[in-house]
């Protein structure tokens, strides 16, 4: 940016010629314009001169020079016209500020000049920034928040989390990582004995609609029966249970693993083959899974909804009574972004297929998902949620009998001792009234009511043995129209507070007439399912809500004494449940690879930030890769070792490593490990031949003291000879709990 001095200098020197030379390309020609104008031959300044320098060339050059010099000489530097218009003998010293010393004809011009210099340089008009109060008004804050969400999406409970958590940007969402308060042990205790709450709305939901056989046929290419139950498992197909499986790329089992997903079928409507399926995927997976799904279902045509109520951004209108009279048409009221605000309006949300009649819809951020972990999760839920009464059901199309049955099941839930007692993955649909209406005045902690438990034992036993009856899994949440209607008919906080202030006795229940009920789904999470100890640890409930209602349910839940956890807690939860956490513990999935390389970059950065004398000397310790687990290298080297041992025939070329997930093989291996049956070398060799380049997810328990570091290498000691057959590699941070 040129300062005043440079500008003055430029103004003075603008008539002076600059050197004309050949050397620097382009510099000679950009110096002064006369070069291009007056050259007789019009030659360009290139490195090579014309072959024969003739007199005309010199003549042209000289003439050009003369004109340049003339220009430089005749225009006096840095002078303004007023003062040079006077002959030299009439110029006076003080004529710049005392205009009376100038002849009359020049006085006006001089005055104007003096005025202009007084005014100073013209600055572009600056927009005056508003006062702090104006900037912090609700509408402007909303606009600011909408703008900030463009890069990383905010969850609906973002502001609540932002005040209490360290946030981080992952998978284009702004997610809570750890609480600012020191609460690791308290969170663990909550998971162990009470309840932990998490907001998992960032999980993407994909909806498939279509005839049942078509969907099953398409999806069977993505899964394999060897890894466990598929989409067609009979329990899950009826819609009574939530299922969990691993997706592979179409037809590429055992390679091409994509990642774990959760799925839920809608209960069958009588005499209808049209089914709805929800698949919940981790956001890191979405870019891999969605094209695969589209390819498999042959859904290529996207349906762009260009209607006023596009599903991309629902509108929550601001009911600001003060502003109503003063709001002009030009200034639209600020609208809170609900749903996926960062998606452009024209982006395709639904894909249809003409042949298979399957429709894939992307329901990212349309449904809010809360996870309650812990043995008393069901109590917290029964405290917070109250089934809606009959008149509120009118807006939500729910059958009255069904609602009564669901209500009964829900009340029976109170009698259960612990969430772990229920069968894994049962689904309960429910329609509840606004939980804000029954918000207690003070925060408390739900405690189990022992009296209640003993009286309700028989019904509770039914529930624990058989789970939720199949037809009670139905819910109005599956319909898009109902969801939109419920989102729109939500009472704003302002109105609710106004009603609350009108109540005679503060703190009593608020009754508002004409309020719509909220349909929701409760999904049971089984917790720890494998192993022999602490079975069903970490079980809980997942709460599915329509968008816009997150804060309305969050605050009442928090008021019941739950702890809130972030991403860190979900990693720990998976660890204590002896399950691999996606995406950290899935090295063969593309999302897992990406996660690993990001982690590696981060750790390397941290390492480099320390001064060289304070760094850990990994070379001395003999660590091959302290920042990542080099699985491919391990697999290759093991294969070489085995080949050198001469037990197997040579295989064809390098094998991409995969994680072994076939249930039968895993069962056999665990039988060998627990020495129930002996391993024969032949069997081992056969297994090795079959599963080349396979990795196993194992859990190590330390017998002594100490804790292995991240990415520590576990070495094979000569005692464990029998595991040479299939190369075993350990996952790192799973020291025994």
């Amino acid at each position, binding site marked *: 940016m040129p300062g005043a001095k440079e500008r003055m200098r430029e103004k003075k020197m603008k008539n002076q010629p600059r*050197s004309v030379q050949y*050397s620097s390309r382009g510099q000679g020609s950009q110096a002064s314009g006369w070069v291009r104008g*007056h050259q007789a031959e019009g030659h360009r300044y290139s490195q090579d*001169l014309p072959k024969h320098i003739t007199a005309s060339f010199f*003549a042209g050059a000289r003439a*050009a*020079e*003369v004109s340049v010099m*003339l220009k430089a000489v005749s225009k006096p530097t840095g002078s303004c016209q007023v003062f040079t218009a006077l002959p030299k003998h009439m110029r006076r010293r003080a004529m710049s500020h005392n205009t009376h010393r100038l002849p009359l004809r020049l006085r006006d011009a001089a005055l104007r000049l003096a005025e202009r210099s007084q005014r100073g340089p013209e600055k572009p008009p600056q927009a005056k920034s508003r006062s702090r109060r104006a900037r912090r008004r609700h509408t402007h804050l909303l606009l600011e928040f909408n703008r900030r969400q463009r890069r990383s999406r905010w969850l609906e409970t973002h502001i609540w989390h932002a005040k209490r958590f360290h946030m981080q940007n992952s998978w284009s969402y702004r997610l809570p990582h750890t609480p600012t308060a020191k609460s690791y042990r308290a969170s663990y205790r909550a998971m162990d004995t009470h309840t932990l709450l998490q907001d998992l709305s960032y999980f993407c939901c994909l909806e498939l609609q279509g005839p049942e056989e078509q969907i099953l046929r398409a999806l069977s290419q993505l899964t394999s029966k060897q890894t466990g139950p598929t989409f067609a498992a009979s329990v899950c197909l009826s819609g009574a249970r939530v299922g969990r499986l691993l997706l592979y790329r179409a037809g590429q089992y055992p390679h091409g693993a994509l990642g774990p997903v959760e799925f839920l079928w809608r209960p069958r409507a009588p005499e209808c083959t049209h089914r709805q399926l929800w698949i919940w995927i981790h956001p890191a997976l979405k870019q891999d899974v969605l094209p695969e799904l589209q390819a498999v279902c042959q859904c290529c045509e996207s349906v762009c909804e260009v209607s006023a109520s596009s599903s991309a951004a629902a509108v929550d209108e601001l009911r600001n009574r003060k502003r109503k009279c003063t709001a002009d048409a030009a200034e639209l009221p600020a609208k809170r972004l609900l749903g996926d605000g960062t998606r452009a309006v024209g982006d395709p949300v639904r894909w249809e297929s003409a042949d298979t009649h399957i429709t894939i819809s992307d329901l990212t951020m349309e449904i809010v998902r809360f996870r309650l972990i812990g043995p008393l999760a069901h109590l917290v839920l029964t405290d917070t949620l109250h089934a809606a009464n009959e008149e509120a059901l009118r807006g939500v199309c729910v059958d009255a009998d069904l609602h009564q049955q669901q209500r009964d099941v829900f009340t029976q839930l109170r009698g259960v001792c612990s969430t772990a007692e229920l069968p894994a993955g049962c689904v309960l649909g429910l329609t509840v009234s606004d939980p804000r209406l029954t918000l207690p005045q003070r925060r408390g902690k739900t405690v189990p009511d022992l009296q209640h438990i003993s009286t309700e034992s028989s019904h509770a036993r039914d529930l624990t043995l058989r789970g939720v009856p199949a037809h009670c899994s139905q819910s109005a949440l599956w319909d898009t129209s109902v969801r939109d209607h419920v989102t729109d008919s939500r009472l704003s906080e302002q109105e609710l507070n106004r009603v609350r202030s009108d109540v005679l006795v503060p703190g009593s229940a608020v009754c508002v007439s004409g309020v719509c009920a909220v349909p929701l789904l409760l999904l049971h999470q089984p917790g720890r399912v494998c192993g022999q100890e602490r079975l069903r640890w970490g079980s809980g409930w997942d709460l599915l809500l329509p968008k816009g209602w997150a804060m309305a349910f969050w605050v009442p839940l928090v008021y019941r004494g739950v702890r809130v956890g972030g991403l860190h807690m979900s990693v720990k939860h998976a660890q204590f449940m002896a399950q691999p956490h996606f995406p950290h513990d899935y090295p063969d999935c593309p999302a897992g690879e990406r996660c690993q390389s990001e982690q590696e970059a981060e750790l390397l950065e941290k390492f480099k930030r320390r001064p060289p004398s304070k760094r850990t000397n990994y070379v001395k310790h003999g660590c091959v890769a302290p920042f990542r687990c080099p699985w491919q290298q391990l697999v290759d080297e093991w294969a070489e070792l085995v080949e050198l041992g001469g037990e197997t025939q040579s295989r064809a070329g390098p094998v991409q490593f995969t994680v072994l997930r076939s249930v039968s093989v895993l069962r056999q291996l665990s039988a060998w490990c627990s020495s129930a049956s002996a391993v024969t070398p032949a069997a081992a060799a056969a297994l090795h031949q079959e599963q080349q380049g396979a990795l196993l997810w194992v859990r190590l328990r330390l017998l002594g003291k100490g804790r292995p570091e991240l990415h520590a290498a576990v070495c094979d000691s000569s005692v464990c000879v029998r595991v040479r057959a299939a190369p075993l590699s350990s996952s790192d941070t799973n020291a025994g709990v």
Partner: protein
Amino acid sequence: MVRFKSRYLLCELCVSEPSSLHLFEDKVVYQALRGAVNRAHGDYGAAIFNITLGVLVKYLNAHTGVVLIRCRKAHYRLVWSSLPFITFLENRGQKVRCFFNCIHVGGTIRTSQKFLIKYNRQQLQRMLLDCKTDAEKQDVRKAILSCSLNLIKGEETDGSDDDGDEEDT
């Protein structure tokens, strides 16, 4: 409030082969001048180049070979006397034989420019006399015409010292 007075040496670079004119760069000329003064006048000469407002190549025209060198008034004779000692210019390993011909010494740039205008006009006229072919004569006449008329657009200059000399061509 002492005024730094300087002298401007207007020199002409004469080269035996005109095709090697592309070598001329102000840095090259400066380095050659420095070397020559160092050789001719020793340390005292070398020190002249290090003081404020010392020697500087102000203007260089590679086509016509005009160089304008500025130096302090106290040392201009020193610099002037070492000009004949520059026999070649070197640029990136290529040597060109040349010699400096000082045509004018002025106290300001403006006086040197005025002189240069007069000098160039004289040279053009001499070239016209020396021309052999008609085409060349035409070109030279055109050149003379172009520089003698006032081609300065914009505000008319009042009291400019150098009006275009109307000369009959």
